[in-house]
């Protein structure tokens, strides 16, 4: 997950002559997932034109819901958000695996994503970029922060920030020794977990400087030293690490939360040819590396890390040893209706004084 700024529209038009089958691909994606150089190469090679709209998970679903799955030809929601949205709103159409060059994908990720995005026997998602959220810590100022609940310790009082969103609830739950993903199917058990987390987060409230909203906001807070420990995405930590060696991403002891952003076809998309062409294009190892270099996260492409910047690799390896990688908690699909429970919990935390 990248920077959920309010949607900004980047439209790129190719001046080259178009082939007869040329289409316009309206891509609904995250910032950094469609770099201009990649678009230029794609347009040159296929003759298709790409229009990019950057967004985040919630806005993607809201936009597609508003048009019943129209307006875009390819979207990139996280894998755990596909089936519930499909069940509720029917905004996607199934992937035709015969049109995907499946050997470009790391097989384990392809099958895991297929499993997680299956609804009514049809597969709706292909893996693209993956990453984690965990802790971004100024290791010089707050070395003791190694887990989510450490954000509530007195040592960092007033210098902590996190989002008031569902990853925070889940991260804290794991850190408190609970297993929220296991309770996904059991509403009562899940509500019990939420109640405990609510108590912890309400008690933690005085420690928090502010609940951050946008990626730039949390980076500013950390860079200026106003915040020394935060719950945030791995790429944010690595970007800050480039400027200040003390700040970096720390995989929490309870486990980083792993997400995979996918390719999904909006139900009323008009340019399926261009969409499949784009998927097969960006999964090529050299293109995948270009995307990793701009987005800061690795992809599900076979050999996709080959051409990746050495510094980024080094930062990734510093944050994740093998044990940390094994400990990543991958988001399972969110059952429909769960978000309502979480929403009420978040509201109560927000309102508590």
């Amino acid at each position, binding site marked *: 997950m990248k920077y959920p700024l309010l949607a900004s529209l980047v439209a790129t038009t190719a001046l080259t002559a178009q082939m007869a089958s040329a289409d316009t691909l309206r891509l609904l994606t995250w910032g950094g997932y469609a770099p201009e150089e990649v678009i230029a190469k794609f347009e040159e090679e296929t003759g298709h034109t790409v229009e990019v709209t950057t967004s985040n998970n*919630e*806005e993607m679903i809201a936009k597609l819901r508003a048009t019943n799955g129209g307006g875009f030809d390819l979207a990139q929601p996280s894998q755990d958000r596909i089936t519930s*949205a499909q069940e509720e709103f029917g905004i996607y159409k199934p992937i035709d695996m015969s049109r995907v060059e499946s050997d470009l994908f790391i097989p384990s990720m392809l099958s895991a994503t297929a499993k997680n995005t299956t609804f009514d026997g049809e597969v709706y998602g292909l893996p693209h970029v993956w990453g984690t959220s965990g802790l971004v810590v100024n290791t010089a100022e707050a070395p003791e922060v190694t887990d989510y609940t450490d954000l509530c310790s007195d040592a960092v009082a007033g210098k902590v920030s996190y989002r008031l969103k569902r990853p925070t609830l889940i991260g804290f739950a794991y850190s408190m020794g609970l297993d929220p993903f296991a309770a996904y199917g059991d509403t009562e058990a899940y509500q019990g977990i939420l109640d405990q987390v609510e108590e912890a987060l309400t008690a933690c409230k005085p420690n928090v*400087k*502010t609940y951050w*909203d946008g990626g730039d906001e949390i980076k500013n807070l950390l860079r200026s030293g*106003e915040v020394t420990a935060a719950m945030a995405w791995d790429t944010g930590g690595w970007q800050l690490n480039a400027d200040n060696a003390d700040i970096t991403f720390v995989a929490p002891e309870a486990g980083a939360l792993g997400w995979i952003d996918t390719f999904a076809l909006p139900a009323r998309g008009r340019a399926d040819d261009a969409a499949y062409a784009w998927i097969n294009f960006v999964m090529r190892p050299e293109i995948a590396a270009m995307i990793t270099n701009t987005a800061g996260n690795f992809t599900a492409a076979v050999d996709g890390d080959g051409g990746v910047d050495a510094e980024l690799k080094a930062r990734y390896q510093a944050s994740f040893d093998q044990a940390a990688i094994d400990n990543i908690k991958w988001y399972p699909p969110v059952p429909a209706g769960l*978000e309502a429970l979480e929403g009420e919990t978040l509201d109560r935390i927000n*309102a508590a004084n």
Partner: protein
Amino acid sequence: MASDTSKLGFYLLLAPILLWLALLILLPHVGLFLVSISEKIGPREYETGFGNYSAFFTEPLYWRTFARTAIMSILATALTLLLGFPIAYYIAKITRGRTKTTLFLMCMIPFWVSELVRTFGWMILLRETGVFSQFLQWAGLVSGPVEMLYNDAAIMVGLVYTSILFMVVPLVTTLDSLDDSLIEAGYDLGGTTTAVMREIVIPHAMPGIVSGCIVVFMLSLGNYLTPILLGGKDSLWFTGMIYTQFITRFNWELGSAFGFLLLALSSLVVFLGLKLSGRSLSETMGRS
């Protein structure tokens, strides 16, 4: 025959306005209302009812945020008026010629950048490592960094700053139309400055005051960015809540109900404001 043609012409001229009203205002609101009275009972299953509205009244967080937003907007409007009136009076009545134009333009300069940039500007000033905090430390007034961001006062500053132009412009317009000789006559007849302000200037500026207040109140009530960015952990704003319902909770039904309640609230406050100032809406909008 002739009257038939002129009637036709009248309706033809009226058509664009009616279409505009129907398509851009009436229709979306009808749609919104229909959404707001449907209750979700399962995936893709809805039934009609006022459950969303009752949810608003039974959940304290919702109506408290609602009341808080209204009170803070009224406060912001009052502050904007207190601050804007002397500025407008100075521009309209004290300065002349080029100074006047320059001052008027200076009021507008902040509006040449987007609201986001303006709000970020305030964040740079108010934050713990920001300009004000460092100045206070440099001046020796405080010993450590001070956090001025993330509280209700910061929201107030942001709201007043964002909306002051919309108060100053109608005030300058109405004050400009106040003949200087009326003010002089007030003094000539023995009035003190207070009396002249109260009995002559303010009654004359009333249409401007009321329309300025309506606009500022609406802007504050409907503001989204400023409370989100400048506000603190407890600084909830009703528009933020609507956004949350629509976008992150996928709960369009409750969001629509909230939208309607906000519409009702703003209409109610404007109505009360007009009643209190003893004016009618058409009079206010027509004369300012």
